[in-house]
């Protein structure tokens, strides 16, 4: 029998004056609360594993060979943005010479911001945290990134198109 159900004489004064019962007034024990915490921890662990699996599945998709753009449409020194290996993956290429083209994923390896080609500096630049990458290799020049940009192999084929061949594993 709870205090609220007790005869008036057995109830505390404050409960006689304010005879309200809050929702879920029954105490949640520490053990019950901790059980919820453990359930939450388990859910977050499952989420972490799911994210790791998703990251793995994305990384093994190195892409199929695909035509990107006609080489004649890109002047020497110009950049061209495209998507590879999926439509959710921004990428960018630069035509460095008549037959020299380099391409990289546009995702900065620091926190995933978009990197841009800086022709005057001859480098890739991430404006979010001032990360800089070497133009030809994608290696880190300065800033917070610790890993090089993701390279995409490209070639110019006889049909006059620039082809993306895949991402090296």
């Amino acid at each position: 029998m709870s205090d609220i159900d007790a005869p008036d004489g057995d109830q505390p004064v404050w409960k006689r004056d304010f005879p309200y019962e809050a929702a879920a007034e029954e105490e949640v024990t520490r053990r019950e609360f901790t059980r919820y915490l453990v359930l939450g921890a388990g859910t977050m662990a499952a989420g972490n594993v799911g994210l790791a699996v998703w990251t793995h599945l994305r990384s093994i998709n190195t892409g199929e060979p695909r035509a990107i753009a006609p080489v004649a449409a890109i002047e020497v020194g110009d950049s061209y943005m495209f998507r590879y290996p999926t439509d959710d993956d921004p990428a960018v290429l630069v035509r460095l010479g008549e037959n020299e083209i380099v391409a990289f994923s546009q995702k900065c390896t620091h926190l995933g911001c978009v990197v841009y080609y800086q022709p005057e500096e001859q480098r890739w630049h991430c404006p979010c945290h001032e990360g800089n990458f070497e133009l030809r290799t994608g290696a880190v020049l300065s800033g917070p990134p610790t890993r090089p940009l993701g390279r995409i192999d490209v070639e110019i084929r006889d049909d006059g198109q620039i082809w993306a061949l895949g991402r090296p594993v």
Partner: protein
Amino acid sequence: MTVSDRSRRTSSAVFVYVLVLVAFQVFLLTVAVDAFQTDHESLAWAAAAVSVTLAAAAAAFLKYLRP
């Protein structure tokens, strides 16, 4: 200190420890999201491994919590 007091304190310590473990899980989730965004696979697996270990530890501590 009576046996009851000691038991209550131990129980509270376990509770706080589990709470800290769960807070750390939130941090690990943000690490995993960062790893996902930057295609950093090894970091994502490391975060998942630590997260599973912590969840198992939290479950183990629950067993010792006073009813």
